[in-house]
């Protein structure tokens, strides 16, 4: 790996740390970095307002953004290489639709769960929904060798589950529809520390499974036949990638709602910045860039001076889409940028 790559990666790492501090200090109340450090590193168990804001609100939100962004970016990279398709992303497999279906069944059926139970049951419902779709996709992937077919089947699963959600909405009360819509807006601010104890280990597991596939992902750049001729067992790799992506995208969707666009865009931005197809470079690149981008979007969503928090889903698309269009136009040909 050339020294230049290390320099860029280190630079992105530093940027991430600065953004983390910024995102904790910015918000409806400004908290200086000094105060943040005082709260974090003093032994006094302080129950002040600032302590509460930092520990119970802003830190979980920032950490969630970092892990969710990294997870979505990495999941997108895996899918794009596996399907050799620039449009592939974690949601193409129907994982987010499956999650939406789970949440829709819970929320729109009118079972009135409130309070602390609400977020947990929502999370479980969406994990169940996404893992059912995951299991179906895994079953199909065992029998179908062709990635394009798998991609289309993923799209069909997505269309099917979305249709069920639409039908459910038609029969639901206005209040239930509103609750469901709030979930679809996406938010990284819904997690408390207990939920983080589920969220972070699942994300890390997905990342480790995915990173172990960095070498097979490189081989897949040449297509499945070449990859197989180099000693790679396509089925094994495909199952590992599907499990990794589903864990990453599934758990993020469960806790943060379906965050659009990031999984698709981050791998492209990484390829353009690092001018590489090597997954040993692209994996850390997508992790860092995904984390940075979602953190920035999150900061924009809770812009200081605004008394409201905008849906993060709108921000990711609003600010991200033009950036990606510009990058693609600049690089002229996107399809050659990946395998």
């Amino acid at each position: 790996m050339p020294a230049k790559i290390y320099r860029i990666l280190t630079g992105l790492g530093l940027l991430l740390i600065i953004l983390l501090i910024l995102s904790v200090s910015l918000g409806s109340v400004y908290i200086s970095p000094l105060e943040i450090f005082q709260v974090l590193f003093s032994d006094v168990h302080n129950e002040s307002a600032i302590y509460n804001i930092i520990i119970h609100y802003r830190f979980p939100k920032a950490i969630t953004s970092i892990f969710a962004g990294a997870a979505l970016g990495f999941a997108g990279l895996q899918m794009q290489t596996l399907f050799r398709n620039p449009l592939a992303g974690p949601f193409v497999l129907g994982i987010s639709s499956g999650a939406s279906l789970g949440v829709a069944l819970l929320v729109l059926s009118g079972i009135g769960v409130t309070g602390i139970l609400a977020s947990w049951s929502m999370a479980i419902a969406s994990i169940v929904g996404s893992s059912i779709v995951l299991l179906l996709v895994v079953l199909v992937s065992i029998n179908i060798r062709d990635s394009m077919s798998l991609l289309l089947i993923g799209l069909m699963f997505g269309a099917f589950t979305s249709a069920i959600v639409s039908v459910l909405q038609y029969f639901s009360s206005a209040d239930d529809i509103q609750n469901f819509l709030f979930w679809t807006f996406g938010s990284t601010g819904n997690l408390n520390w207990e939920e983080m104890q589920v969220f972070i280990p699942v994300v890390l597991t997905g990342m480790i499974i995915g990173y172990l596939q960095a070498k097979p992902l490189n081989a897949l750049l040449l297509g499945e036949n070449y990859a197989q001729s180099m000693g790679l067992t396509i089925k094994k790799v495909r199952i590992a990638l599907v499990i990794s992506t589903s864990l990453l995208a599934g758990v993020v969707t469960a806790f943060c709602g379906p965050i659009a666009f990031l999984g698709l865009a981050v791998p492209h931005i990484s390829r353009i910045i690092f001018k590489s197809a090597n997954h040993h470079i692209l994996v850390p690149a997508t992790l860092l860039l995904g984390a940075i981008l979602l953190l920035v979007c999150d900061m924009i969503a809770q812009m200081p001076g605004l008394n409201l928090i905008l849906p993060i889903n709108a921000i990711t698309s609003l600010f991200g889409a033009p950036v990606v269009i510009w990058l693609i136009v600049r690089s002229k040909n996107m399809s050659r940028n990946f395998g």
Partner: protein
Amino acid sequence: MDKADTIFHTEDLAIGYKKAKSKNILMDNLNLSVKKGQMICLLGANGVGKSTLIRTLANLQPALAGDIFLNGINISTYTPKELAKHIGLVLTDPIQGGNLSVRELVQMGRYPHTDWSGKLHAKDHEKVDLAIRQCGIQYISGANIFEISDGQLQKALIARALAQDGDLMLLDEPTVHLDANNRFTVMRLLKDLVNETGKSIIISTHQVEMALELADELWLANCGERIITGKPQELVEKKVISKMFPYLTTLS
């Protein structure tokens, strides 16, 4: 030639495609053998099953019947990684891995020789350098693979298969899409590689003249008939060539 030289052979191999209940057999009763240091050209019309044969021999698709042996051992008993250390491939599949340099492409050949991280050691770099030199593509080794010509890409793909360092290379129409000059240089390169490295090479091709001139053995595939094998000279004398490729005589 005694049997000890044989590194690769098939026993009653049948190739083709299986659908739910019916089988589409393209060739059967194949008893082919490859000796060390042989350049074999597989000739035959479009659709006769050349690519299918190459793919079956490379274990990319299952045989309908029969067995394939590498160094006397059935290839189904090899792990994919072990098999990859013995057989290198050049296919007609389009390569799109953009952002890959020629050198990185050739390095992929070391895939079965490296651990999970894919880290290349001094020996791997040596093999990569050697393959690049043998194919004469040092001058483009830093270029991106979408910047180079079809002929250069084909040489890079051959270098990748060489770096894989097997005893056998299978090439599916390596000269397709190339102009006359490049067709010649690629075939000549393959012949030189056989002479230099002692590897065995099976090439499917439509270049009858070059095959007659360069191959140690020809495999002639005809629809519905058995593959005819033999040295080019013998096959010409037996009039097999002129029967199968009548245009050759009218051309010359």
